[in-house]
């Protein structure tokens, strides 16, 4: 059986990303393996330490930067994370200075919001209603 074990997110600065994803979003660092000037850096959800790992991958490839910027400018999220209570998370993150390009919005069976991860990406938070 094939399983999803990692998913990747391109970031402009791995250290800054680690800080944001752990200190603001509440993920936990899982692996940090030095690889030349960068590292294999992954985080996981605090309540799923053996769950899918999110790779905070350095963006070195120029066309990827163009793609990332185009998504960012259009407000399109690169990926989406699930939360139990979106309004609560929104208020918490806003009070910690996180910027949102889309405030909580109900869309059919979900409520979602989009935040700026400060590393070049829009990230969507989703709560299933």
């Amino acid at each position, binding site marked *: 059986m094939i399983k999803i074990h990692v998913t990747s997110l391109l970031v402009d600065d791995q250290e800054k990303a680690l800080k944001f994803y752990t200190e603001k979003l509440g993920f936990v660092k899982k692996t940090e393996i030095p690889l030349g000037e960068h590292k294999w850096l992954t985080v996981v959800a605090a309540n799923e330490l053996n769950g899918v790992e999110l790779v905070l991958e350095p963006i070195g490839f120029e066309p990827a930067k163009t793609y990332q910027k185009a998504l960012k400018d*259009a*407000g*399109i*999220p690169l990926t989406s994370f699930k939360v139990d209570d979106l309004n609560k998370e929104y208020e918490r993150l806003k009070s910690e200075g996180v910027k949102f*390009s*889309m405030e909580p*919005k109900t*869309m*059919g*069976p979900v409520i979602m919001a*989009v935040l700026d991860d400060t590393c070049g990406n*829009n990230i969507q938070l989703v709560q*299933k*209603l």
Partner: protein
Amino acid sequence: MKKKTYYETQLEKVIEQSALPEYHYLQVRQSKDFMEKCYSEKIELDKIAMAACMSRFHYIRLFQTIYGTTPRQYLKDLRINKAKELIKNGLSVAQVCYEVGYDSLQTFSSAFKRGTGFSPREYQKMNISNRE
């Protein structure tokens, strides 16, 4: 007021063009809330459909379209997740069985095993050894 992003305007368009009217989502959500409140009781599908103010047939089809699972399976998963929490909190398997709306220990154990891959007792033992 903050200017909407391209993404947000596209989302609004998509939802406007959705084949399902907003009240259908609200009705189905109502039934989901009902299951979340009453999972510990014996609830029949007709009663759940009633909470959504729909016929049973229409309700099942709509629930599956929106959530990708049947209401029966959703309720089963909900009960198993609650059971996992209660076992972790130290309740006995028999107590958990009744707390999550099953009146037969055997049916509960089979549903738990199908949902988690472990019997309730195995799951309980794993949690005790994890705590130690």
